[in-house]
């Protein structure tokens, strides 16, 4: 159950520019709202041009100071696996960059090479190796180094790993009959090790790893089915796991998913008669509206409607589809208010993943800044040298 953080968020002052000027309502609606119409959404593109509203006396430019004044954040769900929070007062490209980085560029550890000593199971070697690669592993990611990229012409598949950059997991399972088991019992009862599960992956420290990888290495989930065996069949393999990013292969993506949505806004355009109110409440499958007793408060006949849970709105448009409710409800999304969800695959807490995503984005900017210094600083003595020193640091971060 999600907590409604609307109250916790300060009202975003994004409607005013640096000098406090605001747009007239019809332009402010275009600037800050996506409209959800009956047949299509409209006004979907954000306006980022600094001078887009200059004729109306509104300065659309952005500075870090203005960004600081506008940005509001509030957390609504925080568990070991899920983080949901609101970010208001910033633009979609920044939020989207963070989402993409969470999916593809925050590092994690996954099995990359599998040495197969024996595999007489029905699962092919390559399929088994693929399944092993997708098993989320809990490892102290900061303790391991990245595997360096191969030099030109070097075969990346045979590049040796070191104790500093990989961990080894053994999987040795043999299936056998269980004596005295009833013949009509399920295979898991009749046979020992009929199901090979991820818990059978045993960490084998390489070199002095036992001394500094003190938390060990284990699969996040014990019960991931890797293969099924029958008596006499055996799997005996050694798997090597390394650091990587989702951009290279999805098995390194540390999130189950990361997504955001713009905050739904549901507004009543006109007062509703009792019958209309009941129709509206019944029409909404997301249960956004509540019936209100307005008779006792001079509100006309019987019932009215309140928008009780706008966050639950899925923009299914049932409320604007019915002819008898035409013009009753205004559906919009706030362009500068995002509800961001991070679901970790379990390898690390989602808050850590999001902080890492911020660090990765800073590092990306820094790498380009340093490269830019090198390009523009050509022939300029001291400045160029300093840029090169920074470049080395930037590469390590990257």
């Amino acid at each position, binding site marked *: *159950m999600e*907590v409604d953080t609307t109250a*916790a968020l300060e009202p975003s002052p994004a409607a005013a520019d640096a000098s406090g000027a605001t747009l007239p309502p019809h332009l402010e609606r275009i600037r800050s709202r996506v409209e959800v119409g009956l047949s299509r959404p409209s006004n979907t593109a954000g306006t*980022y*041009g*600094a*001078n887009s509203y200059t004729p109306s006396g509104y300065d*659309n*430019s*952005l500075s*870090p100071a203005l*960004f*600081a004044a506008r*940005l*509001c*954040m*509030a*957390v*609504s*769900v*925080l*568990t*070991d696996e899920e983080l949901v*929070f609101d*970010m208001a007062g*910033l*633009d979609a*490209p*920044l939020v*989207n*960059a*963070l989402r*993409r*980085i969470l999916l*593809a*560029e925050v590092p994690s550890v996954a099995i990359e090479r599998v040495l197969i000593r024996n595999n007489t199971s029905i699962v092919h070697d390559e399929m088994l190796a693929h399944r092993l690669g997708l098993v989320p592993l809990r490892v102290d990611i900061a303790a391991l180094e990245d595997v360096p*990229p*191969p030099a*030109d012409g070097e075969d*990346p598949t045979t590049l040796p790993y070191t104790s500093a950059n990989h961990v080894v997991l053994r999987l040795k399972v043999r299936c056998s009959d269980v004596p005295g088991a009833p013949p009509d019992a399920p295979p898991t009862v009749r046979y020992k090790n009929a199901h090979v599960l991820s818990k059978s992956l045993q960490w084998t420290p390489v070199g002095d790893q036992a001394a500094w990888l003190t938390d060990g290495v284990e699969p996040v989930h014990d019960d991931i089915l890797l293969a099924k065996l029958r008596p006499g069949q055996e799997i005996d393999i050694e798997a090597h796991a390394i650091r990587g*990013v989702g*951009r*290279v*292969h999805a098995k390194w993506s540390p999130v189950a998913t990361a997504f955001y949505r713009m905050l739904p806004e549901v507004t009543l355009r006109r007062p509703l008669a009792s019958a209309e109110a009941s129709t509206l409440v019944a029409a909404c499958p997301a249960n956004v509206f509540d019936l209100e007793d307005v008779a006792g408060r001079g509100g006309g006949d019987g019932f009215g409607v309140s928008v009780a849970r706008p966050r639950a709105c899925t923009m299914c448009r049932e409320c604007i589809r019915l002819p008898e409710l035409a013009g009753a409800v205004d559906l919009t999304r706030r362009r500068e208010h995002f509800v961001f969800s991070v679901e970790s695959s379990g390898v690390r807490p989602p*808050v850590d993943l*999001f*902080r890492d995503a*911020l660090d990765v984005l*800073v590092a*990306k*900017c*820094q*790498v*380009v*800044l340093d*490269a*830019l210094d*090198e*390009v*523009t600083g050509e022939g300029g003595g001291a400045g160029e040298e300093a840029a090169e020193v920074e470049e080395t640091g930037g590469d390590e971060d990257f």
Partner: protein
Amino acid sequence: MSNAPDHFAAVVLPDGVQKLTYERDVKVENAGTLTIEREDHTLGNLVRMQLLRDPRVTDAAAPYLPTDAIATALRDLNAEINLIADKLDAALDAAATTMDDHGQYR
């Protein structure tokens, strides 16, 4: 399989390729093309947004070098991302104080 690009090719800069190259426009003084290698929409769209937000870019009246514009945009972005990190910490602190009431937080 032999013609498939190496996995790391998506991330690692090939030998002899520069991360960033800048080509000045031959006719317009304050225009040019920046090419950033081994980056995608994650950074591209973000930098585009930040550049558009700079009045000196969209104005194009005063001489303003594209390299200066990009550098400003990237420095501003760095500052903004750090602000997000700070506000996230504040939001987490605020959540920690109120969350026991809901019984759903750590």
